[in-house]
């Protein structure tokens, strides 16, 4: 493919030159009063720390290298060339839960595996997120029997990706929804109906009907 570079217009060239001269004046100390204020305002972007931190976090998930079953094959696809997850900054799959902040439950979780998964999740450092990938892990799918346990029963899940197995594109979409959530502008979806915010983990110790703890409300740095 040939790359064409359009020549700058005369107006753009003039603007660039005037900004250059303005900067030179500022460095020389020639700008004063209103002119200096205007110059500073042009170069400053105001935001909140929360938003800036959420922006950084949402664009650099470190997923855990962790596969459970056939969904893991599709999960491997998201780092490959077609659904290149590195475009969004999620390509650094960490081999240790202590370096990861996103766990993708890719496959069925048996009753014997559930404590292991929970321990991996507990070993991850805050802030951390979890994606339940595929039918088995969310609603037990075709293996709705004595052997499996749905992931919501033993850990808080941020995003459920349906499918059996979901295609890599679906998982990439799920991760992007999680990014939206971390950035703090996630469409509520089903949460609207249940008046839920963020990811909730219901703890049995709390003796209050419907007691739920908002672990990681979107756009907030709580738990950092």
């Amino acid at each position, binding site marked *: 493919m040939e790359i064409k570079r359009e020549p700058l217009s005369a107006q753009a060239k003039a603007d660039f030159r005037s900004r250059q001269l303005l900067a030179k004046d500022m460095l020389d100390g020639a700008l004063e009063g209103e002119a200096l204020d205007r110059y500073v305002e042009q170069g400053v972007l105001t935001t909140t720390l929360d938003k800036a931190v959420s922006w950084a976090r949402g664009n650099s998930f470190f997923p855990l290298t962790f596969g459970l079953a056939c969904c893991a094959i599709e999960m491997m696809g998201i780092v490959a060339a077609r659904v290149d997850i590195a475009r969004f900054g999620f390509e650094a799959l960490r081999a240790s839960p202590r370096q990861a902040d996103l766990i993708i439950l890719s496959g069925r979780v048996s*009753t014997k595996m559930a404590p292991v998964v929970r321990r991996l999740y507990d070993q991850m450092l805050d802030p951390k997120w979890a994606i339940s990938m595929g039918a088995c892990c969310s609603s037990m799918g075709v293996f709705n029997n004595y052997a499996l346990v749905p992931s919501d029963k033993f850990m808080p899940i941020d995003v459920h990706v349906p499918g059996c197995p979901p295609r890599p594109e679906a998982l990439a979409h799920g991760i992007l929804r999680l990014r939206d959530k971390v950035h703090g502008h996630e469409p509520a979806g089903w949460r609207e109906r249940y008046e839920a915010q963020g990811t909730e983990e219901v703890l049995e110790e709390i003796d209050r009907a419907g007691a739920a703890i908002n672990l990681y409300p979107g756009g907030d740095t709580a738990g950092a």
Partner: protein
Amino acid sequence: MPDATGLELTAHELRDANAESILGTEFFRGQATLLTNPKHVVEVLRTLHGKGYTFLASLHGVDYYPEEPRLGVVYELLDMKAVDRLTVKARVPVDDPQISTVVELFPGANHPEREVYDMFGVVFEGHPDLRRILMPEDYEGFPQRRDFPVGGEPVLFTFNEQTSYGKWH
């Protein structure tokens, strides 16, 4: 595969050694099966082992509910020189599911016997390490028995959200 005549000859030979050991024979679609008394199954397998069936290809359990005796243990034997296969079946009652282990004869039977114990609750007497192998060790019940509930979770759909678990308006 031994043909029907060969199967009968083998059964006769085993009956000569111990009249109670063989309860019957089956020959169905080219597959030869010896129905054995569970009390003498090790003896039968040892004799067959001496006749060349030196490889235990599979050991698995069956639940014949509601027939009695309910539980079955199936040994698939393979003669690797003659390329002959022979099935040995033993049935044990569900109230007293005891059968002798064949680990000393076929060391590879160790894990399959644990699996049959885990899933069907057949107790293999003399097994060196009879623990659950697939399910958690504190699990109660034997999930592959036909009278065991399938289990699972009710799936939350829109039509049953008022009667199912969860929070709703």
